């Protein structure tokens, strides 16, 4: 118990330290992984990946099913153990700056019948600031409602999360990340099972966050929306295939290398990816 309280105090002190660090390495990486390798006991599912996500950018992590996209994010955050490799968040070990990071899990991994309302989920993003025993007061509730408002969900604070549509559920989790006031947001397939209008609404919020200088990294599946939505991509298939600004790295050649024969079935929008840009 005391240990946990002490850790809370230490991390509160670390916030300033983290901000200072970030200032010193301005324009540098929000998230950098080097030689990241993950195995669930057998062959590696992510092998020796180097990747850099610069501050203030919005990046897509793309690749075929089983390419290790989600695993890479989880390993970067220590949710799954890594076999080897190094992770730096704003130039510091993740544990020192975790307050600056928000993680939005895959929708499929959540128990939607859990007895919790939209506002309660958002409040989870504030518990770190309030502390283990601190009271959740009017101020916290107002902050949570403001976060819900920002994602267009203010009318749904009292709803049990299972009574929301897929897109609404996704926005509640985005509101939790907003409440955390994180500078780096990692989202695992935020657009899976979400209709087009909601996808646009979520993207608008993410673009706002980017405009504020925050960094967004999203595991993404829909190749047709990559160009319009993300300014950087990381192409992954266990190993890193390519990374960089979308116009440089999101090429047919790289996609073929990542997806192999499976790309034939994936219709790349021709007008969106003109052949000229490949050369």
């Amino acid at each position, binding site marked *: *118990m005391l240990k946990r309280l002490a*850790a809370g105090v230490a*991390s509160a002190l670390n916030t300033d330290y983290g901000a200072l660090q970030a200032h010193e390495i301005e324009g540098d990486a929000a998230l950098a992984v080097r030689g990241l390798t993950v195995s669930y006991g057998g062959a590696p599912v992510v092998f020796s990946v180097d990747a850099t996500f610069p501050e203030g950018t919005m990046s897509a992590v793309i690749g075929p099913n089983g390419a290790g996209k989600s695993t890479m994010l*989880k390993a970067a*955050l*220590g*949710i799954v153990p890594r076999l080897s490799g190094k992770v730096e968040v704003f130039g510091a070990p993740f*544990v020192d700056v*975790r*307050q600056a*990071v*928000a*993680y939005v*899990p895959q929708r499929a*991994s*959540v*128990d939607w019948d*859990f*007895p*919790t*309302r939209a506002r*309660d*989920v958002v409040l*989870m*993003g504030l*518990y*770190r600031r309030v502390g*283990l*025993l601190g009271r959740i007061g009017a101020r916290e509730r107002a902050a949570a409602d403001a976060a819900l408002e920002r994602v*267009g*969900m203010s*009318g749904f604070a009292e709803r*049990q999360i299972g009574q*929301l*549509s897929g*897109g*609404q559920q996704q926005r509640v989790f985005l509101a*939790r990340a907003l409440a*955390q006031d994180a500078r780096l947001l990692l989202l695992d397939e935020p657009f899976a099972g979400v*209709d087009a*209008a*909601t996808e646009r*609404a979520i993207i608008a919020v993410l673009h706002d966050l980017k405009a504020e200088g925050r960094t967004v990294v999203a595991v993404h599946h829909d190749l047709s929306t990559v160009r319009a939505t993300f300014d950087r991509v990381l192409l992954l298939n266990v190993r890193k295939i390519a990374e960089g600004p979308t116009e440089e790295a999101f090429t047919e050649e790289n996609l073929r290398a990542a997806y192999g024969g499976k790309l034939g079935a994936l219709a790349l929008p021709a007008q969106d990816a003109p052949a000229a840009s490949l050369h």
Partner: protein
Amino acid sequence: MSALTQALTLGAGYNAALVTVGAALLGGAAGSVGTFMFLRKRALVSDALAHSTLPGIAIAFMVMVALGGDGRNLPGLLAGSAISAAIGLVAVDLITRHTRLAQDAAIGAVLSVFFGFGVVCLTAIQTMTAGRQAGLETFLLGSTAGMLYSDALLIAASAALCVAGVFILRRPMTIVAFDAGFAETSGISVRAVDFAMTSLVLAVTVVGLKLVGLVLIVALLIIPPVAARFWSERSERVMLLAAAFGAASGYVGAAVSATAPALPTGALIVLTAFGFFAVSILFSPHRGVLAQIVMRRRTSVRVHRRQGLLALAKDEPIYDRMTLAVLLREGLVRPDGVMTEAGEAQAAHASRDEARWRVAAALFEPAALPVRGDPLIPIDGLFTDDQIAVIDAHLAGAKGA
């Protein structure tokens, strides 16, 4: 009967009163900590844990006798049970983490092996030290008979400590149960919280062995939370309610048991808990079976009324007997199938509503639609007058074109 009333009002003697209060505290602790095991989907771990206590009880008895002490010393027996339960837990954890076996298989294997071994030990004790083993089998189903003052005090105090522990850890336990990945990234160690949660279950189980018995303690950990879940969509309230159900079960069960010492206490407590469960599953206002039946019936009537009105508005024949019955009962059609005046008005209203709904979804972002997927709700109250005007203008324009 007056003896029962006396026991229920804590008037059946100081010792009986202390046991009853202890059982209530134990029930409260079990209900609240059980809530988090239930929400974490680990409810059955507590079953493996409970059954793993038996060898520990038997071996502790043998050790204490061998050392020349009293084999029935409760703290000694409980310490033994805690050690063997912890070994059982570690076994489940190792099997789950290092093999491809699912947790339920690991639980089944550990539970039966430990229990079997415990039964062998008990039998060995019976042949070894005839006459002195009396009482050990009460750990199977629980008993208040012959409980010492110090035993009751131990149970009550430990149960109170468990309640305090659950209260302090409720937030991290909720977050870990809901979203372990998020918990880990925000600095809550999932392993540490899981360990604390399991330790609380272990404590409740060990403390409850004497009163409830190892076979039934799991029921006290699972039934109150499951019953409480029917009444609230908020985890804190589910926990408080589960604690209340558990406490009431412990209180009533122990009081009844004080008047009928032949009945096993654990069984009485669990049957009381089942009473709460039965009432909850039947009568809870939203999730209960009756509420569900009523809601289905209401929706069905609303759908048939609406479809019938829309058919009438379009002068289409109605064949569905349920639809006809609904319209007839509400005086919207005459027995010969012709619309009444009220029916005509409502049919016009329904078809206008339907047309408005159709354009409403197209005109306003789905996010702005106040109610998801319920087109049967009258649209007037849901949108502002301005919005309705926009919708109607759109409708008029569509007709003109």
